[in-house]
């Protein structure tokens, strides 16, 4: 039966107007790029760059975070998530892109990083242009490639599977045999995710402040990234259910599980935020407090800080408590978009105060346009993938398990 489900999906995909999607997203991208360049050369270069950094860390985290689910499913042997595995892989095209987008920073490094012009002898061995770009590029490249390998393997399975028509005989067989579960790559990806994302956090956000440091900051960044990644997944699944006829594959059950995962990571992110704040609050050492106090006590940031706390953590926490919402694709899309916006503000709060000294909130049309540009690019990459490749890991031996028996039922838990 799998193969005809699959055909339905393909049919549904055909009926969708991908061209427009791509076109629109490209236009958005163009607009963003233009806005960036204008701000850079005609306007306030510092703000242009801060907008760039914000979006860089935001979208990079988002992409790698979204992709993370696939290797995690592989490693935990979890069955429930198989139907959405491919959706999480659908951001794979953006991974190399975020590697490439590192390089513009090289041009703007003097504007972005204080240590480029006034190196501090204590930190110089770490914070110097050569080493910085060396480690960043190596790290991002490695992670992107691992991602590509994973995506490639799981696609290859499907394509073969479809080629020899209905592979029913192989369904239900365990991971061995011709089926490649890229286990090693998955392990590599997860480990890289932890280290490289921390690297990005330390280098592109923490190092913007002269003195501040927090050992958990890296972990905080990659947890929040996964949190937002899950929202992307929720949106994509909703899209799949509504527009790609995957309703009877991505059931309430999957949605519910994604919702619960989202909730869990909302809590974890909140925890990681509180854990840092608490320790800094107790220590009351200026080297740590200045960074925080600048954001929570000094205009124009105070209001923003409270907003972020509320919209990124508190509200989603409350909303996601409700069981019904978790199982409703539309509502999930809503809360997901809400979280995505909140997360963007959060990055804004982390980055900008260190880079831009300003009496009023430096959040204007340009910041928005530039971000929209990034959005366009991201959407474009995803559309490209969805259109081209099967959106269901049809050959995954665990897929049937997810569709039949106990696993298919919505559980109390």
């Amino acid at each position, binding site marked *: 039966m799998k193969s005809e489900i699959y055909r339905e999906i393909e049919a549904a995909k055909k009926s969708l107007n991908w061209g427009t999607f791509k076109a629109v997203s490209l236009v958005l991208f163009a607009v963003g790029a233009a806005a960036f360049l204008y701000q850079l050369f005609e306007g306030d270069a510092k703000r242009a760059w801060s907008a760039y950094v914000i979006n860089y860390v935001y979208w990079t985290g988002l992409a790698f975070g979204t992709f993370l689910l696939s290797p995690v499913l592989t490693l935990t042997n979890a069955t429930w998530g198989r139907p959405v595995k491919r959706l999480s892989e659908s951001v794979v095209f953006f991974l190399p892109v975020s590697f490439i987008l590192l390089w513009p920073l090289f041009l703007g490094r003097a504007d972005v990083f204080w240590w480029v012009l006034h190196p501090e002898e204590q930190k110089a061995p770490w914070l110097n242009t050569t080493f910085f770009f060396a480690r960043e590029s190596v790290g991002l490249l490695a992670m992107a490639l691992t991602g590509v390998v994973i995506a490639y393997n799981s696609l290859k399975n499907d394509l073969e599977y479809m080629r020899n028509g209905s592979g029913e005989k192989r369904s239900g067989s365990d991971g061995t045999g011709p089926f490649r579960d890229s286990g090693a790559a998955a392990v590599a990806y997860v480990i890289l995710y932890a280290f490289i994302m921390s690297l990005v956090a330390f280098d592109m956000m923490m190092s913007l402040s002269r003195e501040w440091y927090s050992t958990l900051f890296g972990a905080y960044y990659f947890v929040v990234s996964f949190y937002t990644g899950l929202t992307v997944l929720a949106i994509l699944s909703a899209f799949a259910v509504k527009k790609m006829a995957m309703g009877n594959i991505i059931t309430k059950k999957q949605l519910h599980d994604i919702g619960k995962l989202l909730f869990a990571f909302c809590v974890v992110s909140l925890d990681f935020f509180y854990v840092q704040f608490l320790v800094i609050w107790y220590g009351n*050492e200026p080297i740590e407090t*200045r960074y925080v106090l*600048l954001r929570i006590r000094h205009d124009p940031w105070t209001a923003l800080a409270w907003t972020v706390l509320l919209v990124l953590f508190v509200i989603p926490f409350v909303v996601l408590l409700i069981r019904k919402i978790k199982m409703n694709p539309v509502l999930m899309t809503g809360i997901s978009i809400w979280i995505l916006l909140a997360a963007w503000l959060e990055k804004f709060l982390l980055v900008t105060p260190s880079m831009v000294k300003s009496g009023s909130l430096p959040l204007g049309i340009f910041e928005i346009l530039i971000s929209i540009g990034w959005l366009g690019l991201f959407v474009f990459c995803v559309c490209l993938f969805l259109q081209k490749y099967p959106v269901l890991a049809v050959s995954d031996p665990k897929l049937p398990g997810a569709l039949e028996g106990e696993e298919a039922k919505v559980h109390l838990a």
Partner: protein
Amino acid sequence: MPDLCRRDFLKLFGIAGSGAVLYGCGEPATRYLIPYINPPEDVVPGKAVYYATTCRECPAGCGMLAKNREGRIVKVEGNPSHPVSRGKLCLRGQASLHGLYNPDRFWGPMQRNVYGALDPITWERGEAILAEKLSAAMAKGGGGRIVIVTGLVTGAIKDLTEMWLSEMGQENGHIMYEPWSYESLKKANQVVFGRDAVPQYRFDELDFLISFNAGFLETWISNLEFARQYASFHPISGESKNVFVFVGPRLSMTANNADLWIATRPGTEYAVGLGIIRAILDKKLAPDQPAERRAAIESMVSAWPVERAAATAGCDPKLIESVARLFAGAARPLAIAEGLPQCVPNATETAVAANLLCTLKPASLSAIDFSCESSRTYVARADAIKALADRMRSREIDVLIFQGVNPVFSLPKAWDFAAAIKSVPFVATFSPAIDETSALAHLVLPSHYSFESWGDYSPGKGVTGFLQPVMGPVFNTKHTGDILISTGKKIKGEESFPFRDFYDALQGYWTRISAEAGIKSFDDFWQNSIMQGGYWPEQTAKAPELSLPAPSFNFPESEQETGTGLPLVVYPTVQFYDGRMANHLWVQEFPDPMTQVTWGGWLEIHPETAGKLGLKKGDLLRVKTDYGAIEIPALPIYTVPEGVAAIPVGQGHWNFGRFATGLPANPFELLGPDLDLVSGATLRPGLNLKIEKTGKTFDIANTDGSFFLHGREEDFVPVISLEERNRMAASGEKPYIDYPLPAGYQESKDFYPRHTYSDYRWAMVVDLDRCIGCGACVAACYSENNVALVKRDQMLRGREMSWIRVQRYFNEDAKGARWLVMLCQHCDNAPCEYVCPIFAPHHSEEGLNNQVYNRCFGTRFCSQNDPYKVRRFNWYTFTRPEPLKWQLNPDVTVRQKGVMEKCSFCVHRIIEAKLEATMKGRKVRDGDFTTACAQTCPTEALIFGSLVDPESRVSKLINDVRAYQVLQHLNTKPAVIYLKRVIEELRV
């Protein structure tokens, strides 16, 4: 309770003991033992009464006030009106109470039985025995058969002793023995100034000082007095700072205060002196010299060109030249020399060189005042003692009496003075406590301790301190004078001693003196003198001009490195003086200022050298000279130059009470037997130590965790150059301080709200430019706050209890060290407070960081989270033996095991002051009171007060450009604010 037999006494002890622990809480037992010397109306339970008396721990004779509570002395402080102490006391003075309450004092008169053990006897019996022996001796006819050896005494008791002897028909039978007798100094003064005496010095008049190994801040002559003078000489005043240079083989406490330490090979200091003279003369920097003097001096130093001098001393010739320039350039420079023959060779030569150097600057000679010469002048010279020893050996002496001296310990072992004593048929001791000498006595007639006695003592011409019994006798003892009188009467009959007792004699003596001084009413005189603690008529203004004899002295050719082994430096320490205080529990507990070692002596050796010899810290070494050998643990440390060994004096007792006995080691045992015919002092040859490891170890109980600051100078002990300081002051720059006040709040870095104080905000300023590292503050704190004494084994486990410590850090080049007085910082944001689960520590409305002992159950988190590490934990219930408990201050809780404690800024004093102020209907004013540590600080480096009062000294000082806070980057906002030490770069 003079007529109390030992048994009853013990009983009483028991009761009193139990009482002494629970003093203050109305426990009736405490009242059994209210001493009955001072009139009853003085004894008001709960009210402290202060009596003036005089410190007799060393011959400096500082005036003290003894704090009497319920008939017990619980604390001593300097007597403000006394010219020597001026309200201050040194570490030893503060610790003197442990001499009074020494548990190893003689409990009463005793007689040695046939088995050699001491049997208790009654005073009648004791005095009878003595009288009979004396009569027997007198019967033999001829003088000099009876000898009394005492420490340095003056006035009535001296008078009485000599009268007593002459009544017995003995001439010059009274010998005053002091280990530190400055023969070399006296000799040198005779050579250069024509005065065989120890003068009084006036450092406060100087603008340049060079000390040839004279530790005048530790023990030299009158260290407390000198410390005070030094405080007005050396620390920055206005824009400028006088220079102090130290020449010597060891970085002593004094040396470490110097702006320049010229490290020398032991015994070659004189070469440096001569080099300086030579340099000055060569450069014609001393114009106003009579030609013939000049010629004479030149001839003396002709053999000592700077290079040779430097080569001999093993120092850089440039140093000598620059010092010469500084000396000559100064208006009133002075050179002083230690002049103690035991410490380093050529003490006399060095002293002569120093004196000669002084003569080059006649202007500063008035800082050397022979008109009020020190009583040390009269101390017997070593040759006299030697002569005595010979007479003892040749059986010429029948009765030998010791009073408060311990020559068996402090004379060179090679003399074998003990054997000499043994050859005397009858030896009696009046010493109050057991010591190596008294241990040889046949009869023990223990005399009062100074605190229990009437008396007078004059440290130098023109100053006399009175002693009065500030509490009743702790043991069954008697005043020396009374013993003499009663025995005298027994022998010669009442009429020959026309006074009731020594008090009578004392008054008689002073009636005479006062009459001579032309004082009308003796009673007024007596009343006032006793009240104010002494008699010091107005000094005649200037010191009379010195008439300099034609100088002639021939300096030895510098002997080149004789033989192998390490040249030895022997030195007295600020804690132990000559070792007479070794059984003072406190003194054992206080870390040495430079080495930070407690409980036991050590052999200092440079780490490099130690490495070469393969010596590790704590290796028990067998150290040999040609004259003796001792076993002593090695201590590799930077206080000595490479290839030099140094051993402190004071430890190494073998029969001196429970605390001192058995600790290594006594350097006197290494000295030679001969006399220096020039000065009449013990001859001090080079003594190159042969060192071998015994294979055993004797762990060194030091309190420092590391020699260095590991790059944290700025966090702990930053220094400031004079130029920088003046620049900042001129430009009106303010120091960067996180004030422990509302002003200290900064929105940009403080999570916590502003701190406001209504009446007081207690705070302390520590001026590190004044601090000389002497540790008097530590001693004062111990006795004021009943700080527990943990003894050696706990000390080794890092469990000392001191509330305040003088931390020593060597500079990165290890050429000198810095001190940091560390006590509870009473922070505004105290990290120790918030971690306690039950509010045992919390912040008072007056800014104190209170520690509520009764509330504490010992999680020890506060100490863990305390970056200054000033909190102390009671690992056990630390107790102290009777009668040491009597010293405990009733105003301060004694802590139980399992409780955390720390500096309280003497909160009980604060409360007392506030009560008094309230009774006067006003607030506490600045200077109404101060903490124990600040009270005693000889250089007034510690200043205590309230920051709320803008006029208080602390409020003014914290705005000094030198102000800083320790570990400021932690944002704890300490209320102890330090003033940086000002460093002067000497151009070399």
